[in-house]
């Protein structure tokens, strides 16, 4: 299915941009008239994915985070969050709840678990040394339906 609207965003992987990116995505999705809960779920999932880029992918460096959001005619939203960071050697392991490689920052290791419970579909592809792509999808139920 072809997207009926899309937007691209790229920004430096600074933690202050976590709020900027989730708010920007939420503002783009607002045109579908989502419920407060849907918007809150999407903001939370985007925040997890972007934080992963900053904390893990670009751990000791400053890199660029790329977001593409697509809206489809069936009210489906797809958000792709991509980095060109270190990559994840074992995606399956990284997605296990409570698994974290950054405990000193009080990271709960629940980023992927949160994304999976709040979104309808989560797809992660990664290549060591090349980067990681996370695709988040959510079907927006129209409020008046």
């Amino acid at each position, binding site marked *: 299915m072809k997207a009926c609207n899309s937007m691209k965003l790229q920004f430096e992987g600074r933690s202050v941009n976590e*709020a900027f990116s*989730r708010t920007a995505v939420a503002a783009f999705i607002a045109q579908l008239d989502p419920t*407060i809960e849907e918007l809150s779920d999407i903001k939370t999932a985007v*925040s997890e994915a972007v*934080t992963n880029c900053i904390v893990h992918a670009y751990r000791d460096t400053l890199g660029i985070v790329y977001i593409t959001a697509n809206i489809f005619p069936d009210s489906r939203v797809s958000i792709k969050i991509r980095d060109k960071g270190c990559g994840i050697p074992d995606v399956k392991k990284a997605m296990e709840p409570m698994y974290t490689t950054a405990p000193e920052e009080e990271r*709960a290791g*629940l980023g992927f678990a949160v994304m999976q419970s709040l979104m309808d579909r989560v797809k992660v592809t990664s290549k060591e040394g090349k980067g990681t792509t996370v695709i988040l999808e959510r079907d927006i139920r129209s409020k008046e339906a």
Partner: protein
Amino acid sequence: MSVQIDLTDELVTAHIIGDIDHHNAREMRETIDGAVLKAQARALELDFRDVTFMDSSGIGLVMGRYKLMQEVGGSLRVVNIAGHLKKVMMLAGLDRLSVMDKPERRVTAGHIEKTGGDENESM
């Protein structure tokens, strides 16, 4: 984003204002822990009434404070949590730590008090 600290006896109340994310969590954590240790508090209350957003950094913040209060032999309560934030906390099983408040209904001696039945209220 900020944390307002109130101190009464051995209770520290931390009123958290704004978004809890990875960017803000460290400063919030340092403010709260500093207040608890300085006051040698035995009870910590995190007031979420003005929290506008929370991701798993909020889970880390609550779990970390839970551990801190365990270490000092004290207790933690999290109060005034909005529905969409509660959902994130439940994902992490924070309800099983029994630190989340349940103000909507009180269960007393085997019966659930009716909501809105003022004249029947017995204290």
